[in-house]
C-alpha cells in the first residue's frame, strides 16, 4: 500500500493579495477632459446638440476671446479676485485666531464652540440682504459674506487640529521646561498645521461659491455678475465662458494650496 503512492499534484498557491492601493496615473485626467470636449464639439457641429441648449466649446472660447478683447475680462476677474482675497484672508485670520483660542483655553472654547455650531449651518448667502443693510451695497457686504463663510469652518478646522496634536509631545515640552509660548509656537501650531491646511482647501472652495452668489445679487463687475448678465440675455456661450473661468479659478487655488502643503508638510513621508 505505501508503495503505491503517486507523486502528489503540485500547483502554485493562488495569488489573492494586492489591490486597494490607487496610484497616480499621469495623463488620464487631462485625457478625460479632452475626450469630453471633443465629443461635445463634434456633437454641436453635427447638430446633435442645439446651440441654444448647449453652445459648442469653440463658441464659448470665442465669447471668452471677445471678453478679453473688450478688456472687460480683467475688470471682472480683478473685482472678483479682490473680493476673494480680502474676504478669504480676513476670514482665515479671524478664524485661526478664534480657533487657536478655542483650542487652548477652556473659557474661549466654552464660548466659541456653541456659537460656531449655531451659526455655521446657516447659508451665509441668506444673510446677504442683512449684510447689505449693515455694510452697504458696495464691496463690504460681499467681502463680509465671504468672511463669515470662511470664518466658521476655519475655527472648526483649527481647534480640531489643535485637539489632535499628540499630547505626549506637549508633555515632552513641559518636561524640558519650555515656555508656554514656545510650546504653542513650536509644538502645537506645527502639529495642527496639516488639519489647518485641509481646512483652507475647503474654505477656499466655499469662498468661491459665496463670491459668485454675492456677485449675482448685487454687483456691476465680477465673474458672478458676468454669468448672471449672460444668463439674463440667454447668451449661453458667455455663460459657459464664465463658468469655465470659475473652474480655472478653483483649480488654481487648489493647486496653490497643494504646493503650500507640499512645502510646509515636507517632513511627512
Amino acid at each position: 500500500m505505501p508503495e503505491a503512492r503517486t507523486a502528489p499534484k503540485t500547483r502554485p498557491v493562488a495569488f489573492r493579495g494586492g489591490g486597494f492601493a490607487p496610484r497616480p496615473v499621469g495623463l488620464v485626467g487631462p485625457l478625460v477632459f479632452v475626450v469630453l470636449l471633443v465629443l461635445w464639439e463634434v456633437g454641436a457641429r453635427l447638430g446633435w446638440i442645439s446651440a441654444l441648449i448647449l453652445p459648442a466649446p469653440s463658441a464659448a472660447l470665442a465669447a471668452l476671446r471677445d471678453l478679453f478683447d473688450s478688456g472687460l475680462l480683467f475688470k471682472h476677474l480683478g473685482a472678483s479676485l479682490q473680493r476673494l482675497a480680502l474676504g478669504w484672508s480676513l476670514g482665515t485670520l479671524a478664524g485661526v485666531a478664534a480657533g487657536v483660542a478655542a483650542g487652548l483655553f477652556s473659557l474661549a472654547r466654552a464660548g466659541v464652540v456653541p456659537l460656531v455650531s449655531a451659526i455655521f449651518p446657516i447659508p451665509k448667502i441668506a444673510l446677504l440682504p442683512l449684510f447689505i443693510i449693515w455694510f452697504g451695497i458696495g464691496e463690504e457686504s460681499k467681502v463680509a459674506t465671504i468672511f463669515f463663510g470662511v470664518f466658521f469652518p476655519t475655527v472648526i478646522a483649527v481647534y480640531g487640529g489643535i485637539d489632535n496634536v499628540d499630547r505626549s509631545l506637549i508633555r515632552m515640552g513641559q518636561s524640558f521646561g519650555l515656555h508656554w509660548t514656545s510650546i504653542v509656537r513650536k509644538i502645537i501650531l506645527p502639529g495642527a498645521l496639516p488639519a489647518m491646511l485641509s481646512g483652507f482647501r475647503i474654505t477656499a472652495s466655499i469662498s468661491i461659491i459665496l463670491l459668485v452668489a454675492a456677485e449675482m445679487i448685487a454687483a456691476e463687475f465680477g465673474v458672478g455678475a458676468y454669468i448672471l448678465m449672460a444668463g439674463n440675455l440667454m447668451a449661453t456661450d458667455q455663460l459657459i465662458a464664465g463658468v469655465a473661468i470659475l473652474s480655472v479659478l478653483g483649480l488654481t487655488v487648489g493647486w496653490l494650496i497643494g504646493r503650500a502643503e507640499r512645502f510646509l508638510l515636507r517632513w511627512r513621508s
Partner: protein
Amino acid sequence: MDLHLSHVTHRYGAVEVLDDIDFTVTQGHIVCIIGPSGCGKSTLLRLIGGLEQPAQGAVLQVGEPPAESRNPLTYIFQDFALLPWRTVRGNVSLVLEDHALTASAREAIIDDVLRRTKLSDFGDAFPRQLSGGMRQRVAIARALSVNPACLLMDEPLSALDSQTRELLMDDLVELWSREPFTACYVTHNLAEAVRLGHRVIVLSRRPGRIREVVDIDLPLAGRMAHRAALEALQARLWTLMREEALAADLELADA
C-alpha cells in the same frame, strides 16, 4: 543632588495607584523600578519629574542641582516624543532655544551630544527616516544636551526590538561609565533592570507598594562577565514579581 521620595501616595479619583512609596535616588546611581503592568510605575515617574502632583507625601530634591544643569529632571520617553517636523539637530535645538545661549554655543552643544550618541552623520535627517533605535538615541542626545542632574527614563527601550535593545543597553552603560549620571529607570523588563540598575525597586500590583529593594553591587561596565550572577538575580526578581503579575492579570480581566 539626591532625590528623596517621602511617603508618596497617589490616587486617581477613588482608585489608589501608589501607596506610601519611600526611597532615595543617590547621585551617580541608576535606580530601576519594576512591577507588573498597571502598578503605577509610570505614574511614579511623572510624580518624580513634577508632571503630576502626589495626593500625599512629597518628592524632595536633596541638595542643589549643579549650576550648569539646564533642566535638572529630564525625561526619556518610551515613544521618544520627537517632533516629526524637526530634523535631528532641530529636535535637540528645541530644548536649548529657551535658554540664554549664543547660536554658536548651542551648535557646539548639539555637536557634542550628537557625537556622544554616535549621531553626528544624521543631524539633518527627519525622525521618520530613522529606525526606532536611532530615534531613541536622538531622544537621549536631547536629554543629555540640558545637562540633567537626574534622568527619568520611562520604559525607554520597550518600543524597540530585542537586538536594538541590547545595543542601546551597551550604549547606556558606556555613557554611564564615561560620565556617571543619576537615573530613575522604569521598566517591566527584568533583564534591563539587572543590567543597568545599581538598585532595583520591586513594586507590588495596584495600589503600588514597595515589595522589595534589591541592591546589585556588581560594577555596571563589567556586568556581562557575571552572566550567572545576573541570571540568578533575574530569577529572584521574577519569583518576587510572578504572583503579583499573575494577580494583576486576573484583576484586569475582572475590571
